[in-house]
């Protein structure tokens, strides 16, 4: 679980969820229906649907969870279970640029730890946090399948490979200046 519970900071979500989202726009609903149609069992579509809700709402918020549970015919706890398992699903709001640094073996050997440290220092946040201006979120994720080009990170769905501190600075600078363009559509 990403959030650590402390007495003064109870978990943000409410167990009783508002049924805020009745439905998304017709285009998105059609997309969801298309995914649902692909599987013999409805709940198999949980991951694609999570990505859609996350894309539409920025992160998987409590109403989004309630919506998913309703669409998939499962309980909110099941959604929570899956959502907290995957680092790609955000259960908290993330910044405009979500910097995800791979921390699995190959990248770790090739210095991912240093890259993370560098980013953390530069952005002034720890992994799992978001900058105050809401521009950047930093997180460590599991293997993204790009071991040959380690260390690597992902911003949105874009891969940035063979990283060094300078290269990271360059990318983050372009983000800060607002010049960064996604090459991959989510």
């Amino acid at each position, binding site marked *: 679980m990403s959030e650590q519970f402390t*007495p003064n900071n109870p978990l943000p*979500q409410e167990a009783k969820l508002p049924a805020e989202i009745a439905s998304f726009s017709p285009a998105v609903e059609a997309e969801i229906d298309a995914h649902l149609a692909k599987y013999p069992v409805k709940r198999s579509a949980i991951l694609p649907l999570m990505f859609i809700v996350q894309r539409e709402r920025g992160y998987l918020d409590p109403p989004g969870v309630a919506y998913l549970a309703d669409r998939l015919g499962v*309980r909110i706890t099941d959604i*929570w*279970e899956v959502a907290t*398992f995957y*680092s790609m699903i955000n259960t908290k709001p993330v910044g405009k640029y979500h910097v995800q640094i791979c921390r699995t073996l190959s990248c770790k050997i090739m210095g991912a730890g240093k890259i993370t440290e560098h980013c953390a220092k530069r952005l002034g946040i720890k992994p799992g946090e978001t900058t105050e201006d809401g521009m950047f979120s930093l997180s460590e994720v599991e293997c993204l399948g790009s071991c040959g080009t380690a260390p690597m990170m992902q911003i949105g769905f874009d891969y940035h490979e063979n990283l060094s501190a300078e290269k990271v600075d360059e990318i983050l600078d372009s983000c800060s200046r607002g010049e960064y363009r996604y090459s991959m559509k989510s």
Partner: protein
Amino acid sequence: MSTELIKVTINGKEFQVAKGARLIDVCREQGFNIPSFCYYADLALQASCRMCLVRIEKMPKLQTSCTITCTDGMVVTTESEEIEKAQRAMVEFLLANHPLDCPICDRGGECELQEMAFDWGNLEERFTERKNAQPEKYLSPIVANDPQRCILCKRCTRVCDEWMGEDAIEAGGRGANTVIGTFGGWLNCSECGNCIEVCPTGTLLDATYRHQARPWELQQTVTTCTYCSDGCQESVGSRAGEVMRVVARDRYVNGHNGEFLCIKGRFAHTFINDETRLRTPMIRYKKGGKLIPATWDEAVKFATRGLDKAAEAHGANSIAVVGSPRLTNESLYALKKFATELVGTENYTATDAFSLSPFFQNLGGQIATHRDIRHAKTIVLIGGEPEELQPFAGKQIRQAVRNGGAKLVIINSTPIRLKERATQFLHINPETEDAAVLAIFNQAHNELAARKMGVQETELIELRRTITNTEGDVVIMFGGEVSAEAQSLLAQMPYLFNKEGRRALLHPLPLYNNSVGATDMGLMYGKLGATEMLDAAGDSVHAMYVAGSFLPQHLTGREDSLGKLDFLVVQELFETETTRFADVVFPAASFAEADGTFTNSGGLVQRVRQTIPPVNQSKQDWVITAQLSKELGVDFGFQMSASAVFGEIAERIPAYAGLRYPLLKDETNPVQVKHATIEQRDLSQESEAIRARVEKMSDTATKINATPPVGHELFKIGTLTDKLPQMHLLASGNPKPPTLAVSPLYQITVDAGMKREAIGGD
């Protein structure tokens, strides 16, 4: 599992075992101790704890015996250096993050991990890294959670899913950061506490028993639950005359319910030692006056004088004797004997929500025990809401469908939660359950019934086909919605559906722990029912002797009826609406202070054992009755022993013939009473009565479409559950407290604004 036998060699010895048996079960049956955490019989396999490793010849690595099905010629080793090394390594891993502070943990002393660490743990810990420490918290008013103690066996998540069908608790996160929890950190479930029961460590704990006692200080007494008709076996832990907790842990008790209990059975036991329990007998010397404490002798004399006077003035039939379906068979039998043999009145009854007497009078087949439900092939549920009112029956149905592949047909006017598991759900109009019974009994009425129930005729045809295509047991269950005539029809259904290879079994769903016993003891066959008796108060009934209290549903609209009586004797645990008018009140002993038996809805007669001495000056109900009769000049000769009463029951009541307490000693082999069955008889009169009533039903009724929330019946506040403070939080909508680190009891004050509707009564 088939009956075919195969040969398996374990540790050099050959055994004949049933084909398809699970290796871990076979090894344990043969006396080879295989440790395990995650394996739990009848739950989905997990194989995550890796403790049950064995060596099987021709298999490359050590195998988890919990996932292996025995095959012919299998050669297994369960003990070797290699296996022990692997198991010791596993315990070392489990203890890497588990705090070693057993003395402060509530589970200490009865913890499976602790025991396993004694057997398989190493003396020294090699890990020097920091433990993954997390603070303790509350997951609900009932469930306390200490996440760092978790070993991720996931028994709790499986139990929640498979037994309760609620999926309220799940494993979140990933890898080393996996925690057992729930969305938003707050459990909104039926709070059965089964996750606490099956937890092999101190991760999930009973919040009502938090830091109250240590298990080795408690005297564990095996007894039967006092709430619903399932008759779950439980172990009551008491210390110095105080009940501290109730568990079903299989080290203490091994009844037909296994480790299953519901919120009421497990937690709502605080009424036993509640300070509002009646302390002494009390007498109201003057109508409208106060109840004044008195001695037992004085109160008994006063009560008998009052009853005598009423009998002299208005005759024996002016005295009514009323029992409660919560009392033991012994107490109910004593009351019946008091009514018929001493007073000689025709007016006796028990304050049950509905009477099962037509069912037992027409019984044409066997009663299904809960075990039969679990292994049934088809279950037909007419009315009722077992997951709220008889939670164990609900669990058996769920498991029969999920693990046994049974077909479940639900006929209900409310889309109850169990419908998720149903093969077929007949969503009928409110109060048309009788029409369903009529149609099942005789297909000729299909058209009429379907129209009145608001379903398609084809649905009824499909329902009948499901029954007639069944190979194995068909269990027909019904709730209190069906009328007396419909009960007779249901009782005779085995004659319609029994055939070679198929048994039709019946299972009524009464509301109270001894509803069936009250019928068996003959109390339900009196001239008047509970409400009729209240209506007759002051008219043909002038004095009443009540053990227990009238239910709110009896008293609504008749609040003052009891005031019209000349004389009212009540024996109760608490002051209630019934004692308000009593002339004499005797303090009665609760189930924890009494010896006796309860008969559950499956016809199992099970022991109730005295856990603590009677609280205050209370006495067991049958002792009070015997004392009254002695004062009236008739000695029942029970000699202060419940077993003597039961002996007389066994002599006089055919269904209980031959039974004695020693035969009921073993809760693992419960005894079913032999209810007399009658020959198939002509029921045209009854079906005609039902048909006439069904025809008068509306064609255009509106259906109930909302599924009732979890706990709408379970969390209702009654006289007994009222004494558990946590129950009030749950009944008030289970609000999430500001902080989860402190018990919600200290944070939330229940006020009128929070109360859910439909509170009251039980």
